[in-house]
């Protein structure tokens, strides 16, 4: 268990370094920040002075070294646009994004897992067909389109929910629904197919041959085995939601990290982009690590390194 955890941890750290490398270089091929930050009328001397001040004229490796030593302590410099520390700006956006992603995942799991279980235990039933229909819709509707339709109906026509911002509890409902829907679909399908698969396993036949009550068999023998793939998908999806809700946050003007990404990329605000990218990667890697640990707790084959 300890060795398993340490090797996963080592992998994460390596990955994180790779992310830093990518973030640093990729941002620098998109354009010259100096020409963007300074007005068009500025003299070439002023632009040059700005470059010098920001250190953009130093050799790229020196810049990278500076970037790394700052990144280790969470210092990504000041935002070019807002002049305040970039990491601090990211941190201010974290609660909103966590609230959105958490609500979305909760909605997806609370609806998706029971639907998948019902479908898996009663394939072909009315509830199964409903669940599969919802899953198909959830996974195939483009969510930027769905977001606009929802705003049109529930915000503009009916006025039940606000169309943007994060001022009241109702604000989170529509963006979380849109963000969680594809995951809900995936959870339904995965749960359903895993239940069906596990129910057909030889060891379930063995459990029946022991004369166990169906409920015991479902809970003890089927569900624990279903939890294994489910845990990993939920972990991956949550990471994806935390980092990937850029256009949903933008459409609903949700003041989270996704919106910050959209804005900082538009301004070519290097320190800010780097800080967000680094932070999101860190969160995703931590989530993966957590998923791996949960995995090992459920599955002894992983725990004992087989």
């Amino acid at each position, binding site marked *: 268990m300890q060795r398993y955890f340490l090797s996963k941890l080592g992998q994460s750290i390596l990955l994180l370094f790779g992310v830093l490398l990518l973030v640093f270089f990729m941002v620098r091929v998109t354009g010259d920040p100096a020409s963007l930050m300074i007005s068009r009328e500025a003299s070439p001397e002023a632009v040059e002075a700005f470059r010098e001040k920001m250190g953009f004229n130093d050799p790229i490796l020196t810049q990278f070294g500076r970037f790394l030593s700052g990144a280790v302590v969470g210092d990504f410099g000041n935002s070019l646009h807002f002049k305040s520390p970039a990491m601090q700006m990211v941190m201010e956006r974290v609660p909103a994004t966590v609230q959105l992603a958490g609500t979305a995942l909760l909605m997806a799991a609370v609806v998706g897992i029971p639907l998948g279980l019902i479908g898996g235990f009663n394939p072909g039933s009315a509830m199964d067909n409903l669940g599969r229909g919802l899953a198909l819709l959830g996974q195939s509707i483009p969510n930027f389109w769905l977001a606009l339709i929802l705003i049109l109906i529930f915000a503009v026509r009916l006025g039940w929910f606000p169309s943007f911002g994060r001022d009241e509890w109702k604000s989170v409902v529509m963006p979380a629904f849109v963000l969680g829907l594809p995951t809900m679909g995936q959870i339904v399908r995965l749960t359903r197919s895993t239940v069906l698969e596990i129910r057909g*396993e*030889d*060891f379930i*036949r*063995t*459990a*029946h*041959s*022991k*004369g*166990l*009550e169906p409920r*015991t068999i479902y809970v*003890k*023998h089927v569900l*624990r*085995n279903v939890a*294994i793939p489910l845990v990993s998908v939920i972990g991956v999806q949550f990471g994806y939601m935390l980092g990937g809700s850029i256009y949903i946050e933008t459409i609903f003007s949700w003041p989270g990290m996704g919106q910050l990404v959209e804005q900082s990329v538009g301004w070519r605000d290097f320190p800010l982009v780097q800080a967000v990218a680094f932070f999101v990667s860190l969160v995703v890697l931590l989530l993966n690590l957590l998923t791996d640990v949960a995995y090992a707790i*459920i*599955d*002894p*084959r992983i725990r*004992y390194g*087989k």
Partner: protein
Amino acid sequence: MSPEELRDVRGGQIGFVFQDPMSSLNPILTIGEQISETLTRHLDMSKEQAKERTLKLLAQVGIPDPKLRYKNYPFEFSGGMRQRVMIAIAIACTPEIVIADEPTTALDVTVQAQIVDLFRRLREMLGVAVIWITHDLGVVAGVAERVLVMYGGRPAEIALVDDLYERPQHPYTLGLLGALPSLESTESKRLVSIRGTPPDLLIPLKNCPFAWRCDYAFDRCWEEIPPLIAVGVRHQAACFYDMEKGGPRDG
């Protein structure tokens, strides 16, 4: 029988050993848990009592160091050991019957012999009847008292084991025994096989299911399905042809 009654019989009065021990145990539950859950289900035992009895069962089926093995998972066991665990589950509640469905097919030969021995020992010790389903006529000769030969989903012949091997009364049994390779023969020759293929059971039978493949089939075999007919002491065969007389059976 209602599903509830059936569940009492399963595991309680009838134990079951399946063919493939690699997939017949739940990979994420301990061996001990998988044996003792039968005990708590049928014998009204507390967890502690069940554990104590499970340790005894593990020793009984020849698993060394039961205390340590109790906490192990199936992936830490070899195929033969897993089959021993399956047997422990089957005999846990001292059932009257154990049904073993090709319990040695998935094992290699040396382990097969150990498992057959274990079954024989447990049968003597616990006085449990074993129904052994198999294709392996060698194992049958070593383990069985009475043999029921099935063909096309119907009983073809029932006999005490020695009687069956000495004077098979059904052409199918004869064919099976003829297909066995012999250790004594020195010349190389092709093994005898039964020509043709088994009937399609989706089409309702109107005659003897073996008639298509039978060297002895005559008119009557194509007209009706033969019932089991007494052909000797505790010996019945579902065949209209009398092997010993060399012609149709009387009546």
